[in-house]
Every structure is written in structure tokens, then in C-alpha cells.
């Protein structure tokens, strides 16, 4: 299959960029490498005829998640790794344990499925319409749960963001500076 | 309602867009090298030195008033050693060196204003860029000297007034000179008569 060659190219690319995302010293570089890895994954999905997933991957991971990661990196001050600091965390053993656990959780359903049995799929391309119908019928409950969860997260984020000005008021030297009178104050002052 | 102001503004720009195709009022651009506006008569750029007849007859007498009054002090004059007769026949110095550094000159026209000899006037040339910013922008007497005819062409009414005045002066001077000559002649006759008388008396 000619697809195989390009698959391997992209697979190697994804692995390389994913490694780069872990190993690079500059967190912004890491984030950009992660974005590249996401994009490579999208291409692989596309090759597997999973159009919808591929585009969703691009839209959400490249367009949104990686931007979010970058924002997080930039907003976290002093997150730069100083030269000489060991890249690996001292808690690497814990990390390894978690990684193994995650791999196991993923591996169990994969192995129990018909993966690797080389059965020709019933449908080569999943039409978007079908995905929509399935989401709205069979997977309605998970979908709604996820929606609820995200809404809660959104509201929570908004609440956290709203509270910030009071905190910054204390920290900033802004309060020491002459405050600009508002228009109402001015009017009150001007009127005898 | 939101957006009404922007729509009003867009109507205005659309009017200007179409208007620029039909009305000279709106499209006032002059496409310079091809189209050129005639300069206003009063327009001034750098100074020039007026001469009557040929280059040897500059009106300038190297009096140095412009040099003194120039706000930017961009004029440099050296008097000649010999005098020449001016239009009234008086013997006047002429400048041996008359330099204007037009990279310093700010075209204010004060030199022309203070000149008592109607010599330094304001030119209307404006394409003055040169290859060399030092020597190219230091104008000498030869570059600055312009014929009275040229001055007439750029400032007709000023030049006309000045010429009329100068003609008047000249006429007066000639009359005066004539009178002086006549007087002299009369005096000469008188004296000759007197001497003749004396001769007679002596005889």
C-alpha cells in the first residue's frame, strides 16, 4: 500500500515531535512541538479515513488546546527551565507508574476489541451524518454529561477570573498612584 | 440604533468615492511631473541676483546688508577691489564672491526685503536637488545671477514697479546730471567770460 510510506513518515514525525515536546528546554518550544504532534495525529486519522475525527483533532487540539497550553506557559511566570536544572522530575518514578497505569487502561479495551484481526470494516468512511445520529441517540448520555461538565468548568473559570481584580488591587502599586476621577465625581465636584 | 452612524459614514465615503471620478473639487491631486501648477506670483524659494544687460552689471553693490540680516546667515560676500559704474553712473563696488548656501537658506525672503538696491530677489525654482550636498548646494554668484528679463517673467508686477522706479531715478539722475552739466557749462562760460574780462582788463 502506498499509504504505508506516508503513514510511517507521519508516525515518525508524530513520535519525534512528541519527544521534542517532552525534552526541549524552552516551554514555548515544547508547546509548539506538541501542536505539531497533534497536527501529525490529525493527518494519520485522515489516512485512516476518519475524516471527522481528523478535522475535530485539528480544530480542537491545534486550534484551541495548543493555544491554551501556550497561554498557560506565558502566564506562568518563571516557568523557564534554567540551564543546569535536571529535566527529569525527582518524582519520575510516580510519573512512570501513572504512565503504565494509563497505558494499561487504554490497552485493555484495545486488546479486547477486534483489533488486529484484519476484518474489512463495514464502512470505509463514516459519514458525518451517521456520527451525528449516533451521538444524539446511542451516546446521548455521555455527550450530555460531558457538556454539563464543560459548562461547569466554564462557569468556574469565569468565576475565578472575575475574582482576580480584587487580588491584584492589593499587589499592584497602582493603588498608590493618583486615581483618575470618574465622570460622575467630576460632575459632583464641578457643581457648586 | 447601533450601526446607523457607521452606515452614514459609509454613505459619505461612497459619495467621495464616486465623486472623485466626476468632480475636480474632490480629486484635487496634481500629477506632478506631467502636470504642473503655475506658481503664484508671490511664491518664493531661494534668492537670486538680478543683473541688467550682462553678467558684469549686477545690481548688487556688495553692501552686505543681506549678509547681516539673513536669519540663517547663509550669505557670504567679498567685495571686489575695483568699482564699476552703476545704472545711475555712480561708481560702486561689485561682489567678487557672492555665495548662498541653500542647504541652510530657509527661503524667508528677508534678504530681498532689506536690499536697498533691488538686487537680491526671490526665485521660484524648486527642483534643487544635486548629487553633492556640499558643493552642489553652495550657489555662487554665477549660479545666482539672473537677468532682469527672468525676474520680469517670475514676478511681473514687482519687477515692473522696480523698473519704473529705477527709470524714474535714472531720468532724475540724468536730468540732474544734465542740469549739473549745464550748470557746469554755464559756470565754465561764466568763468571763461570772467577770465576774458580779466584778460580784457589786463589788456
Amino acid at each position: 500500500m502506498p499509504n504505508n510510506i506516508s503513514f510511517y513518515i507521519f508516525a515518525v514525525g508524530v513520535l519525534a515531535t512528541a519527544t521534542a515536546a517532552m525534552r526541549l528546554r524552552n516551554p514555548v518550544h515544547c508547546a509548539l512541538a506538541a501542536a505539531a504532534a497533534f497536527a501529525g495525529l490529525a493527518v494519520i486519522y485522515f489516512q485512516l479515513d476518519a475524516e471527522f475525527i481528523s478535522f475535530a483533532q485539528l480544530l480542537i487540539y491545534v486550534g484551541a488546546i495548543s493555544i491554551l497550553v501556550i497561554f498557560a506557559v506565558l502566564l506562568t511566570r518563571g516557568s523557564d527551565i534554567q540551564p543546569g536544572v535536571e529535566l527529569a522530575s525527582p518524582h519520575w518514578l510516580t510519573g512512570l507508574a501513572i504512565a503504565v497505569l494509563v497505558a494499561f487502561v487504554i490497552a485493555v479495551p484495545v486488546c479486547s476489541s477486534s483489533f488486529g484481526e484484519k476484518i474489512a470494516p463495514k464502512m470505509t468512511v463514516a459519514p458525518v451524518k451517521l456520527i451525528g445520529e449516533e451521538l444524539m441517540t446511542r451516546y446521548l448520555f455521555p455527550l450530555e454529561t460531558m457538556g454539563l461538565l464543560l459548562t461547569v468548568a466554564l462557569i468556574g473559570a469565569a468565576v475565578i477570573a472575575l475574582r482576580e481584580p480584587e487580588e491584584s488591587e492589593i499587589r499592584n502599586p497602582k493603588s498608590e498612584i493618583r486615581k483618575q476621577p470618574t465622570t460622575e465625581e467630576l460632575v459632583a465636584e464641578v457643581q457648586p | 440604533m447601533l450601526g446607523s452612524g457607521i452606515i452614514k459614514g459609509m454613505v459619505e465615503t461612497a459619495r467621495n468615492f464616486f465623486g472623485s471620478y466626476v468632480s475636480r473639487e474632490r480629486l484635487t491631486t496634481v500629477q506632478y511631473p506631467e502636470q504642473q501648477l503655475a506658481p503664484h506670483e508671490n511664491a518664493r524659494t531661494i534668492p537670486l541676483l538680478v543683473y541688467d544687460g550682462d553678467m558684469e552689471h549686477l545690481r548688487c553693490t556688495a553692501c552686505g546688508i543681506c549678509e547681516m540680516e539673513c536669519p540663517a546667515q547663509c550669505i557670504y560676500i567679498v567685495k571686489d577691489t575695483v568699482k564699476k559704474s552703476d545704472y545711475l553712473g555712480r561708481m560702486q563696488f561689485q561682489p567678487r564672491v557672492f555665495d548662498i548656501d541653500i542647504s541652510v537658506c530657509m527661503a524667508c525672503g528677508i534678504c530681498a526685503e532689506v536690499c536697498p538696491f533691488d538686487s537680491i530677489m526671490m526665485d521660484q525654482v524648486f527642483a534643487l536637488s544635486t548629487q553633492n550636498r556640499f558643493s552642489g548646494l553652495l550657489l555662487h554668484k554665477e549660479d545666482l545671477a539672473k537677468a532682469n528679463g527672468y525676474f520680469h517673467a517670475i514676478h511681473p508686477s514687482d519687477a515692473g514697479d522696480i523698473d519704473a522706479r529705477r527709470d524714474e531715478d535714472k531720468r532724475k539722475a540724468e536730468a540732474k546730471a544734465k542740469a549739473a552739466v549745464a550748470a557746469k557749462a554755464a559756470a565754465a562760460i561764466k568763468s571763461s567770460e570772467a577770465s576774458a574780462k580779466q584778460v580784457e582788463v589786463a589788456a
Partner: protein
Amino acid sequence: MNNLDQIFVYAKYWLLSQLPGGVQSLVSIVLDIIAIIAVFGTCFALTTILERKGLGRIQNRYGPNRVGPCGLLQPMADAIKMLTKEDIVPFAADKVVHYLAPLVLTVPIWLAFSVIPFGREMSAIDLDAGVLFFFAVGGASELAVFMAGWSSRNKYSLVGAMRAIAQMISYEVPLVLATIPVIMLSGSLNLNKIVEAQSGYAFGVAQWNVFTPWGFAGFFLFLIAATAESNRSPFDLPEGESEIIAGFLTEYSGFKYALFFLGEYLGLFAVTALSVTLFLGGWHAPLQVLEFLPSWFCFFVKFAAIIAVFIWVRGTVPRLRFDQLLNFSWRFLVPLTLVNLLVAVVWHFTSLGAGLDQSLRWLISAAMIVPAYVYFGRALSPNRPTRIYQYAE
């Protein structure tokens, strides 16, 4: 008529038929790519010159008219100048990222054109999820802008990049939300099917989406969001030259700058082409009597008209402030697009055998969208009393 309409398609097949069967599919792809690059590259060149001339006329001047006849060769002169300029990379810049940013911006944008039907039978790929693909490849531009701004190591660049990202993310929401009614009512994410859904004529006038209440509102909402999405005035804050020099482009010069310039215009073209496809009936002629016109001609006329509107707006309005820009998106565009979604639903269900009069349907829709427009418009700029100026004698 049919020949002229399909002239490019026939030309392509004729060319393919001259080739051995093995390479035909590959050559077909290459031909599509060349066609898109050639057409939109020319569009880019033409738009830069026509935009400057149009803006010039709006401002009562000629605009560029020195190079070639009527100044039409100005883009060539610009290109030569851009390509021969020194490529300056700041000393402190992150060189790799600085180098990659213009590529990351420009390359995916070309992909977006592949799903747009430019005429009858004239779309490069017929993707089932074409709309989704369009927005997906558009997502990379945010990343590119960030890369440009961050790698320049310039505060203006960084501020510009931050503005650009916040703006693009904020306006992507109304942009997609304005698209959703179209997708819902035509029942497909496939752009060809969306165009097909707008075929047919009622009383000799085309049945485009823009001639429905939800389509009309949606079209304008989409255009506003598209203006912001492509960083055009009045939403050109990322490059707000009076505030932050040139935003994320501050440290770019020469060819890289030209690439960014190209990318910006291509983004504009892509989103304009999408708006034509979604709301203006794609390549369909506006009137039945005009059906003899080639489909691609109809498409590009509409396309040019929308670009002209963008230029017109650019020549008129000042720039918004950043917080106002975000407020405009979240407090005005997003709620309105949501209301519009509701309007679309109502429109859809009133047609289902309810036998409602067409004018009544319009009335219901207008009753939903107009008060919402007024209300959110008011809320955006709360009580601004008319100012009265006094005179001292």
C-alpha cells in the same frame, strides 16, 4: 453555454486524457493545486492594487497609477521590492520559530480553498465534512501569529500576537455559530450540497440563504466575524499601526513579510469564498434570466463584491479598542448568532406542513431578531446621552 460553464473542467479532462493512466490521478491533484494557486495568487495581486486604488478614491486621491497601464503592474513592482529586500532577523529572535511562522500561516490557508466549489463541478475535493475542514485548517493561523509575535522578542510583537490570538478565538465562536443555521437547514457539512440546497428559483429570483431572515442576519453576522477573523479594519488591532507599530509583523521584513501579507489576504479570500458559498448561493446566478452566465463567473462576481465591501469598510471606520472588540464579540455577536439559530429553527419548523403564510414567517423571524439586535446593541453601549454644547459669549 454549457461549454463555457465547464470550460475549465473540460480543459482539465482533456489534459488528463493525454497522459498515461498511471499518473492521471496524481496529475489531476497537481492541476487542481496549480489552478487554485494561480487563481488566488492573481486575486491577491489584483486585490492589493485595487484596494489601494479604491481606498485612494475614497480618500479623494488617485492611488498607485505609475507602474504600467493605470498602475496595474504595481503588484509586480511590490513583489520585486519585497523579494529583494534584506531579510532582517532580530539578534535576540528565536530564529527557527521566526522562520517557520510565515510558512505555518500561509500553507494551511491554501488548503482551505480545496473544499470551496468555485463553479459547477469545480471543487478540488468533495469532502463530506467540508465546513469542518475549512475551520480546522484555519486554526493553524492563530498558532502562526503567536509564533511570529513570540519569536520576534519584541514587546509590540508580543502584544500584537496576544491581541491576535484573543481576537481570533473570540470571533471564531460567532463565525461558526453563524454558519450553523446553514448547516442545519441544508442538512450537510458538505459545501457542494450546501450550494445545491440553494439552487432553484422562485419568481425568477434565486433561493439563496441570504434571502431568508436567518440567512440575512447570519450573512451579516458572518461577515462581521469574518472581518475580525481576517484582521481587517475596524478589527485590525493585531497590527494596529497607530498603537503597536505593526503588531506581530513588526520584526518581519522582505520575503517573510510578503508571506504574511499573502497569508492575511488568502485568509480573507478563503472566508469570503466561504460566505459566498454559504449564503450567496455559491456559483448560482442571482436571477433566472442570468443563468446563461458561467457558474464560475457568478461566483467570482459575488466574491469581488464582498471584497469591495471589505475595502469600503476599511476606508470608513476607525479601529475599536481591544476590550470593546472582545465585548462586541461576546456580548453582541455571540448572543445574536444564538438568537439567529433559534430563528432558523422556527423558520424550519414553520415550513413543515404548517402551511403558514410566507410573510407571516418573515414577521415572526423579524420579531425575534430585530428586538434582539436593538437590545444587545443598547446593552453594548449603555445610555449615551446626546451631548449638548454650551457657548460662552
